């Protein structure tokens, strides 16, 4: 397993944000976490990023406990949040080069980086433009390019298509699917039922810090998914 959560618990003071989460994502799998705001999706992703520490339980990446191997585990991860934040005064190429270097991938040829940006779908005439001029969709593409350039084994996506227009959202989903097909494990927190059904191999529904349902995406239709989701939300 690339990612594994065992009885993962997180409390913010008295408030339980995660209550004993168990979760596994293997290579070439896309696990979509659905749920309302405050269900614990972002907390789960932040625990795997090592930005917060669990109250109890275990979060492992490639068999390594995140809490004890915060830097080591990040070598396997690429993280794309709702808004990929980049340096507005640097160009897309410079941003990509910078983040790739920090991830430990040094001596990357410029041509290779340009190819990566092209593969991620960034228009060529924007590659050397300051990121301050980019649309949100373009910034998300630079985020995908970072994941490609870093050769990440695990993609942690936190509502990455939120606010994107349908075309950009579709392009993004296709890129994720491509990476999945290349063996990358993906954990994606999202509200987008349609995209989940499209790209996920498995889907989980979270409610009040618990995984209340988990099933293979292929087993349900779009309509079934919406019904199941709403049923859990109304409980």
């Amino acid at each position, binding site marked *: 397993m690339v990612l594994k959560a065992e009885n993962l618990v997180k409390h913010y003071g008295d408030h339980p944000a995660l209550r004993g989460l168990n979760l596994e994502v293997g290579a070439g799998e896309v696990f979509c976490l659905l749920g309302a705001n405050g269900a614990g999706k972002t907390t789960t992703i932040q625990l795997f990023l090592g*930005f917060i520490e669990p109250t109890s339980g275990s979060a492992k990446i490639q068999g390594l406990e995140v809490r004890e191997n915060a830097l080591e585990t990040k070598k396997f991860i690429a*993280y794309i949040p709702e808004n990929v934040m980049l340096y507005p005064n640097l160009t897309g190429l410079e941003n990509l080069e910078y983040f790739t270097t*920090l991830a*430990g991938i040094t001596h990357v040829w410029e041509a290779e980086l340009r190819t990566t940006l092209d593969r991620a779908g960034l228009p060529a005439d924007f590659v050397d433009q300051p990121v301050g001029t980019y649309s949100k969709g373009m910034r998300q593409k630079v985020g995908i390019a970072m994941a490609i350039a870093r050769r990440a084994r695990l993609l942690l996506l936190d509502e990455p298509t939120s606010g994107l227009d349908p075309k950009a959202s579709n392009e993004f989903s296709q890129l994720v699917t491509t990476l999945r097909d290349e063996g990358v494990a993906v954990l994606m927190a999202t509200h987008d039922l349609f995209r989940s059904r499209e790209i996920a191999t498995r889907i989980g529904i979270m409610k009040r810090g618990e995984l209340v349902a988990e099933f293979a995406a292929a087993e349900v239709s779009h309509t079934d998914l919406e019904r199941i989701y709403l049923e859990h939300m109304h409980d």
Partner: protein
Amino acid sequence: MSLVRPIATKELQEIIRDGRLRLLGGIVVILALAALAFGAQQTHRAQEAREHASERAEKQWEGQGEKNPHVAAHYGTHVFAPTSVATAIDPGVTAYLGRSVKIEAHKRNLAAHSAAEDSASFQRMGSFSVSMVLLLLVPLLIIALGHGLWSRERESGTLRQLLSTGVERKSLLFGKAIALFLSIALLLVPAAVLVLGVLWALGGGDASTLMRLALLGLGYCVYFGIFGGLTLYASAASGSSRAALVAMIGAWGLFCLVLPRAATEVASAARPLPSQASLARDVAKSLEVGIDGNLEREAAVEALVEDMLAEEGYSDTGMLVDAATISGVELQAEARWEDSIHDHHMRALSDQMSAQEDFVTLAGFLSPFVAMRSLSAGLCGTDYAHHRHFTEYTEGWRKSLVTMLNKAFADNAGDAGWDYKAGPEVWKNAPAFNYAEPSPTFALQVHLRSVLALALWAFLSLGLALRSAQRVRVT
């Protein structure tokens, strides 16, 4: 840690591209250059005035014609404090201390004719110098450029993106610190080269001056490093960029405006200095009745005359000693008595001033500005310690000049007594006034406490910056 370089490069790119450096740095550099031009002009003018006055005093002394040596000692001469070329950088307290000393018999005069006395009153409102730009404005520039280095990353969300790459926080801190340092260096190094050129033109190319300037440069690097470290700490620890900016401006005001003033006021209150009038009254009284008020001048001088005659082997010769010799010895005895009184009061005054200085330098442990200001003036040779070094040499020279003249009277007057007149051969034999500025080591020894305070501040700011970098909140 190998990632420090790309991080520093990127931070520097950002600082340069967003225009802050050009705008703020431009202002600081223009002010520094204006201060340099002003300081160089003042220094050049002071050097010229000193050379001119020294030449005149020397000519007057040697061309004073024939007169009794003791009368010549009464007329006296003037000596002038040297003007260090580094005054162009940091005038220290030189503007408020006298630049010339009247040398005469029976009196130890204080240095007079300070630049502040000679200036129009509006010119005293505040000193504008390169050191003030470096001490006050460069820290503000550091704060302006550095307050958002962590907090802006957090606010914009790039910090989360950065840390998700697995980069060490320590590498990020050092990269940011180096970029901040380089951006300041980018402005100040060309200005420093210009300063060196100007000082060279003013005659400051000797090894001692170069050593002083090198130490000064090192001192300022540490000083800027302290503000850089504190700014990075505030940026990491504060909730927002605005809070970091406000905190650092507050700290700047406390360190650079409030504490220096408070330290000076408390030192003045704790160790008050006598007014010139009361000092003169005390000296006059002591000259008549001794320091403890129990020894009349006449009796004291008489005892000294007896001692001196005994030293010269005249105590048993009785009537064989001529009157001129006795007069000469009496004059020397009087001078000794007066010197002991003057030395006592001047030492007390000097001790009081040193105590004030000591108190103020202690404030360096509360404010890096105070520590660096003291060290800067010390390395530029414009602090009170250098002034005291000069006045002590001058007093030693005065004593040897008066002794030489009284001895010439005693040895050569013979039967002519007070009618004896000496000529240029005696004036030319006056001891040479060869004052040499102390070495840079003197400045370091005098300001060791400031050096220690700066070192402690440097460790503290580095420690705080490192600690806050490890704990910087991601969201």
